[in-house]
């Protein structure tokens, strides 16, 4: 069969990459004169040591699952959607628009409407680069990244000039009505120690459902089959009668909608109003999450959890060890991205060789010796 068992590809290689990244991070921490061991303890404790830590870790992970799935779905069609940042921002706008415009009697109805609007706005934002790619051949990497800036500028304009509350200095919308507030972890899992301050809310279940749906879409439906076929070979797709324009458009609409769902967690679930720059880089982290998770929903969940922990643990770290600045946290996160994404082959090649050597030795041992 292939070069190595699947578990090595999915678990072992990312694990080695993360360990290497942490070792280098430790080196950097040591260079600035702090104890890497203590820093590590603070980060792990901060992320997983308390219900408070878990709340934030899972809250961030929810964001990264959505944006990671968005990138992963596009990857299957070999489309590099790095516009998750802008698409999520537009998703947030959609959430705010519908929650402010209608007087919702119950959060379930509000949630359904907010989901529809966040996905609609975000998918529309993704549709323009998709159309330009499908019809004009404009490279989607370039257009989606430019659309991030346009989205950002658009939100600044709307928050400052249109949605800002009269008399307020802050560039944020009015707070949503209490009836639209999503149940938080304190409501549905208070027994586990989550308190009212936790940002974790029921959106995490939506994220997990999205994982299942994406898995079904990619590996069980005709559309997913066509998306994967197109991703591997456009010529072959055309031969089979698959319409490239259709696949590019649909894939990017799904990808954009997933990125937009991230706004449900942040805008509706946590902030309960639209604030400036609420995406906070989650769109970009999604790229790393999808890369590390091999574009598979299970991998995406695991990678999202890792990055959630890095975000939360990192925040604790700069609080506990002032010598380690915010920029240092970014360095650590960047190292993880570097090792799991860009330097993947550095780990992969030796591991592959190792498995091949082991296999050959096993085969040789199994083969009867003709001279005997």
């Amino acid at each position, binding site marked *: 069969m292939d070069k190595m068992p699947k578990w090595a590809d999915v678990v072992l290689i990312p694990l080695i990459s993360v360990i290497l990244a942490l070792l280098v991070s430790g080196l950097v921490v040591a260079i600035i004169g702090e104890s890497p061991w203590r820093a590590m303890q603070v980060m792990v404790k901060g992320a997983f040591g308390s219900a408070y830590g878990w709340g934030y870790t899972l809250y961030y992970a929810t964001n990264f699952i959505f944006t990671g799935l968005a990138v992963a779905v596009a990857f299957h069609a070999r489309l590099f959607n790095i516009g998750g940042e802008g698409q999520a921002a537009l998703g947030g706008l959609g959430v705010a628009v519908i929650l402010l415009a209608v007087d919702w009697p119950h959060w379930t109805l509000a949630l359904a409407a907010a989901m529809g609007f966040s996905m609609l706005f975000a998918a529309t934002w993704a549709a323009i680069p998709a159309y330009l790619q499908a019809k004009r051949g404009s490279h989607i990497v370039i257009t989606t990244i430019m659309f991030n800036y346009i989205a950002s500028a658009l939100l600044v304009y709307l928050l400052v000039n249109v949605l800002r509350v009269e008399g307020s200095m802050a560039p944020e919308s009015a707070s949503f009505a209490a009836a639209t507030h999503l149940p938080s972890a304190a409501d549905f899992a208070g027994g586990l120690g989550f308190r009212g301050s936790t940002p974790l809310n029921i959106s995490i279940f939506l994220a997990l459902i999205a994982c299942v749906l994406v898995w079904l879409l990619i590996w*069980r439906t005709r559309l997913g089959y066509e998306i994967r076929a197109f991703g591997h070979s456009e010529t072959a797709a*055309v031969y089979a009668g698959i319409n490239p324009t259709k696949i590019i458009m649909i894939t990017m609409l799904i990808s954009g909608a997933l990125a937009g769902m991230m706004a449900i967690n942040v805008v509706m679930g946590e902030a309960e109003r639209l604030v400036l720059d609420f995406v906070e880089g989650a769109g970009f982290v999604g790229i790393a999450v999808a890369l590390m998770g091999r574009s598979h929903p299970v991998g995406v969940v695991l990678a999202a959890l890792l990055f959630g922990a890095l975000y939360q643990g990192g925040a604790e770290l700069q609080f506990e060890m002032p010598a380690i600045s915010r920029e240092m946290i970014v360095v650590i996160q960047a190292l993880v991205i570097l090792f799991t994404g860009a330097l993947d082959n550095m780990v992969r090649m030796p591991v592959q060789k190792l498995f091949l050597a082991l296999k050959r030795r096993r085969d040789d041992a199994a083969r009867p010796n003709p001279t005997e």
Partner: protein
Amino acid sequence: MTDAPAIELRGISKAFGPVQANKDIAMSVARGTIHGIVGENGAGKSTLMSILYGFYKADRGEIFINGKATAIPDSQAAIRAGIGMVHQHFKLVENFTVVENVILGAEDGAMLRPSIAKARRLLTELSEEYGLKVDPDAIIEDLSVGHQQRVEILKQLYRHADILILDEPTGVLTPSEADQLFLILERLRAEGKTIILITHKLREIMEITDTVSVMRRGEMTNTVKTADTSPAALAEMMVGRKVLLQVDKTQAQPGEVVLSVRDLRVTRGGVTRLKGVSFDIRRGEILGIAGVAGNGQTELLEVLGGMIAASGGSVSLFGQPLDITGTAANGQTRRARGIGHVPEDRQTEGLIMPFEAWENVAFGYHFDPKYNSGPLMDNAAIRADCADKMARYDVRPPNPRLPARNFSGGNQQKIVVAREMDRAPDLLLVGQPTRGVDIGAIEFIHKQIIALRDQGKAILLVSVELDEIMGLSDRIAVMFDGQIMGERLPQDTDQNALGLLMAGVTEGAA
């Protein structure tokens, strides 16, 4: 000059992972001879030549050049040892001139002008000496394929090659170009050069080589004098059993017209590829399209298969028009109308290489209700169908879960053939059905095509292999420069006559 052989290999072995590509190979080629190497795909010919040219390092074994043990760690060392290689796919810079290509990598200094002047002088001498006429200042992309190949040979001679390795050199040539190449090779031999010719065309081996070695499963099984052997004997040595080189078939019984093509035109990238092509194919008939690659056959298959749009003309199937320009011109609607399509390139068109065999069996037919249950694909049903097809079409190994890229070329092609032919389409489009396929699989695929014809189906066969066209077709149309130059019956024509048509020479001019 010594009497030592130009090349002697002793005990060459090379393994890639668990695959033993070359096993204890011994070979000796006398100076001034042409030595052929034949073998099926994956028999280890390319590996052996790559070792000789320094691309791979042998695990074991020694190479002697002119009786001297020589290490060849890289291609630079091979060039120093006087070995030159002409690859199947030329390594030329398309927008450079001949002389620029020849000196590329062998410039004398930082300034080009003196090198070019010297090269031009040398090239003229070499051209005259070996009958390799090429304009040194022509741009490569303006030259015919045959002339490009001459540039490749000149490049090697310019680097003082005494031993030339040619890998499938006639694959891209017209028969007359191939004849000219053989004249050149004979001249090179007369001048004392040693030539190793790798080919799967047994006719060429018989025509030009002095000795021939047969490789099978990584081993060199036989080396014989060409004069003492025959194509049938060579084929048997290659495959390990008796092989039918000629296809057995009865006289065609053509019925009603299935496909009718009228004045079909295709323009792609601003270039007119089809310039008004018309023909009919009837039930129970194979129409073979002969021609050198790149004369519009690819576009003909693609437009009939719904992959590209036509710019004019009309096509009808059983008298009903076929959309060749609009939105219904795609592979799905073609399949729905009963058109099967074995594409020219199985690796980039016919198969998704990372997909497992079963996923490829559904490719293009993934909307078939028997492959689906509700909104989801019925993977179990597809796998069962795949296992069934693999058994009936002798795909080895018969494992539906193996990715397509892990099958040999012949077995990949059998997967495509099984998928496209098992539904007994009314019209089958077949492009290069046996390109890069081993002899055993060729025999099998040819039998399948004949069997489909005998079921009363219409078949359009495009191939650059004249033997294949002659052996399978009931009628032969020759394409040149986007047009059909003429139609012949296989029993009334021969390779030379077809070769002239393939080069664009019609009776009037000839």
